[in-house]
């Protein structure tokens, strides 16, 4: 057996162990999350939208369920659960849009569960989760209509976007909405930084659940990420030092 699978398995076990450890010890060693301005402002923006009778729109992007681009959209579903809970009793409940059929079904299931838990299942409508278009640009081409005709005040982009993400954010900005934009792709993050009023950088796109209090495991997973990141940085520095000294050449 080669080294890579063993190392990969060890890394996964380390991750799971750290996540469980930090979940168990959360009361003994409480942790303060660093400030992410976008998520801090999001809570206030949602409250204002609910009070003003406006709607929150969450875009999960055009990523599919199968594939490496699904993780950001799954993180977006965690945000959806919290956003749905916060807006469930509003006159204008949250809507979510996707560019993939399977992701639409998952978004519908997430919304349905939130409505059932709030004991208002009769208020749930399947069209609250919509597939706008099966290709990235057909998806984003439908977005101005959603933003303009649904009294949207908060426009959250939390999913897998390519360059079309910049247009999605720009449409929101041109309507004067609160725009929070995060994607898993490096180039998309760069253009979202320019176009979205509240951009999310790097792994911040995966941190929504922790910042919106989706559960202790979300906070624990952020702590686990930080520990592993420190290990990765240490390995990179040690490797650089050893190479500089001529070891292993």
């Amino acid at each position: 057996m080669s080294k890579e699978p063993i190392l990969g398995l060890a890394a996964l076990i380390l991750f799971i162990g750290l996540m469980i450890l930090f979940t168990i010890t959360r009361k003994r060693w409480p942790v303060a999350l660093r400030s992410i301005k976008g998520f801090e402002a999001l809570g206030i923006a949602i409250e204002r939208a609910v009070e003003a009778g406006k709607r929150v729109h969450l875009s999960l992007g055009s990523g599919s369920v199968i594939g490496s681009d699904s993780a950001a959209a799954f993180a977006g579903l965690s945000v959806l659960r919290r956003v749905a809970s916060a807006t469930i009793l509003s006159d204008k409940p949250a809507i979510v849009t996707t560019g993939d059929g399977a992701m639409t079904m998952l978004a519908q299931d997430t919304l349905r569960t939130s409505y059932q838990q709030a004991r208002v299942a009769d208020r749930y409508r399947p069209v609250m989760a919509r597939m706008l278009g099966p290709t990235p640009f057909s998806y984003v081409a439908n977005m101005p209509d959603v933003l303009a005709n649904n009294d949207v005040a908060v426009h959250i982009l939390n999913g897998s976007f390519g360059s079309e993400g910049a247009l999605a954010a720009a449409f929101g900005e041109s309507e004067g909405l609160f725009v929070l934009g995060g994607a898993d792709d490096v180039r998309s993050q760069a253009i979202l930084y320019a176009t979205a009023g509240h951009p999310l950088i790097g792994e911040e796109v995966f941190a929504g659940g922790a910042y919106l209090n989706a559960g202790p495991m979300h906070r624990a997973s952020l702590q686990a990420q930080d520990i592993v990141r420190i290990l990765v940085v240490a390995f990179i520095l040690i490797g650089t030092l050893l190479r500089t000294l001529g070891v292993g050449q």
Partner: protein
Amino acid sequence: MKIWGYILWATVAVSTGILVLLGYFVDNPAIHNVRLLILQWATILAAVALFLGLANLWSVHWKKVSDQEKGWPYSAVLMLFFIVTLAIGLVFGPDCPIVANLFNYIQLPVEASLMALLMVALVVAGFRMATQRRDVVSMMFVGTAIIVLLGYSPWVIGGNGFVPETMGYLRVWLTQVWSAAGARGILIGVALGSITTGLRILLAVDRPYGD
């Protein structure tokens, strides 16, 4: 009763996830074959889900037209072309020239024009950033973008002298050292975030399939 349904779905999701994950790490033909089989099922289910997504798209626009909501004529046009394209595809097959022409002469130009609109959106966003978001990072972002853009201009690439050469050197230094290093740092963060998101689903903490 409901709790058993929840346990059943969570068990199916977790065990399927573990089997697929093990297929990547354990060199066993049986596990490898099970992983491939599950991935094939997932692909088929995703294709079926596309049809359900299109049905969802249809129902949203149907409601808009039947309720005469604002912008309903656009929805009516979408539904008309939805039916026409679907009918042509079903009758003549996806390889017929009519379907190819619909794609090449309608969808492609529309998507290309959106791509052009993206350039305008970025210029406007850059201007807005320079005028409204006056923090150090935003100024660095705009300044770097201007230097890199100037560094790719014909004046710099084809020019001689101190200023063009310095600009060319700056462009290479920014894109190949700072930008590449930053992108790698972001990629490490995204990879770690993806892993923990996947593990939360694998541990049934996040249940996107509902409770």
